[in-house]
């Protein structure tokens, strides 16, 4: 198979999903696609099925928390890989923190199971349709979602490590 061009990939995605693919950029090492969270399964399925793409390997799922972005504080990031074309793509779906739900990919990829559990464990993102969504690395009794930015790593009352003392 030939090499995929990022601009054709972006163009095809935008043409196929004009309402749900919000924007794409190539600012980093691979194509970033920002889409509506309700369309995640359709987009992944399309990228899987389309004969010229065949993104059939799920490399990674992780979450990111941006407390300053109102209404889309949480973000789920998928890294997909097409072995036939040796090409990678990064899909991003923003979620509001009050309703952090997104559809699960476990129907498509068996490996999504633990990756989604890990994301739930650390960010509290609910994957709808996941067969066994519970904590994986932290204890079951834990109430907080520890990777969210409101949980500082060190005692917030400490003043000797404030950024202003380091020229920031």
């Amino acid at each position, binding site marked *: 198979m030939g090499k995929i061009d990022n601009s054709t990939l972006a163009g095809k995605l935008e043409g196929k999903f004009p309402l749900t693919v919000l924007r794409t950029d190539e600012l980093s090492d691979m194509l970033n696609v920002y889409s509506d969270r309700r369309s995640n399964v359709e987009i992944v399925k399309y990228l899987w099925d389309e004969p010229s793409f065949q993104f059939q390997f799920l490399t*990674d799922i992780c979450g990111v928390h941006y407390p300053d972005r109102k209404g889309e504080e949480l973000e789920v990031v998928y890294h997909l890989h097409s072995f036939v074309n040796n090409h990678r793509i990064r899909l991003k779906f923003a979620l509001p923190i009050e309703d952090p739900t997104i559809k699960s990919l476990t129907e498509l990829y068996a490996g999504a199971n633990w990756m989604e559990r890990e994301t739930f464990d650390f960010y509290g993102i609910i994957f709808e349709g996941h067969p066994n969504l519970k904590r994986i690395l*932290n204890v079951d009794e834990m109430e907080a979602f520890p990777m969210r930015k409101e949980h500082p790593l060190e005692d917030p009352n400490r003043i000797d490590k404030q950024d202003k003392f380091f020229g920031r």
Partner: protein
Amino acid sequence: MSSHLPLVNHVEKETTTLNLGPTHPATHGIFQNILEIDGERIVSAEQTVGYIHRAFEKLAERRPFYQITPLTDRMNYCSSPINNMGWHMTVEKLLGITIPKRAQYMRVIIMELARISDHLILNSILAVDTGAMTGFLYVMQEREKIYDIYEEICGARLTTNIGRIGGMERDFNDNAIKKIRQFLKEFPKVWAEFEKLVSRNRIFMDRTVGVGGISAERALSYGFTGVNLRAAGVDYDVRVMEPYSSYEDFQFDIPVGQHGDVYDRYCVAGQEVWESLKIITQAMDNLPNDSFHADTPEYYLPPKIEVYKNMEALIYHFKIVMGEIEMPVGEVYHKVEGGNGELGFYLVSDGGRTPYRLHFRRPCFIYYQAFPEIIYGATLSDAIVTMSSMNVIAGELDA
């Protein structure tokens, strides 16, 4: 005849619950499996992981970039230099630094030594789990020699913290080169003898052939990478698909299995050791003569003696150690072929002194979830051999 037997209308059928782990010698690390056993056969398994979770991703959000290196080598501690190098390359990718050829070749040599040490543990422990202790003790000596080489290069043995962002911390000294040469001369005999002991051994083959198999389709669906995926017949290797650190300069083969069972994993890992030796030999013979680090003083920690004598070096040293260097805003995903699969680093930087978000794609965390499916219907002894052959490293599993 049957008329003499009492008529049994109803047999009470019961399965046994067995806890395999968390601290069981056969699990090689702290993780638990709750097995449901019907007689000898496993009908279901549930894994519990997270016993040594140390929150590396959270810790990384509070540390300057160079202080994250020691976190990475505590993940896959059987091949820690690969993790260190992967992290350095991730930061270099974010910064847009190209490092000199010599540094890249040095990294390749160290990464391949790490791969050998990982695979020799994997294969010899698999032999131990099938009852062959001798081979394990024999190759363990060779791992010590690899650790001696690390010690000569960076001063540490297990958790190496080797290399720097922008290259290596120091050049190979004469002793290191001598030790690598000696290793290249002596190790092939040892590995050949180990394989002679184990590979075609009747008992070993009876225990491993056709045990713990997985098809290529299921392996891909589960996100398998590394030896486990190649044993199932998919020739995916990051070193060839997306070469980093000058891997494109070397001639080597990617061994591929057929059945994805324990024996194929053993054979693929064993063959990879020979390929790694080929790579190290080529890298040693063609080691370029340029610098062992990039000329980027604002990111590369200067030698200590310069810090005492030279004003610029002192300034850069202070800025790097205090985490004051300018980091670009951006995000990168970098991957290396780790000891057990594709080790990925997803780094989001907002220009601050620490990463905004760092996610480790830990290969064994992803493929270990296939374990219940692989051992369904197998016996307990097969399950132990399967687990051993999958190269699950507790430190990496839990990060």
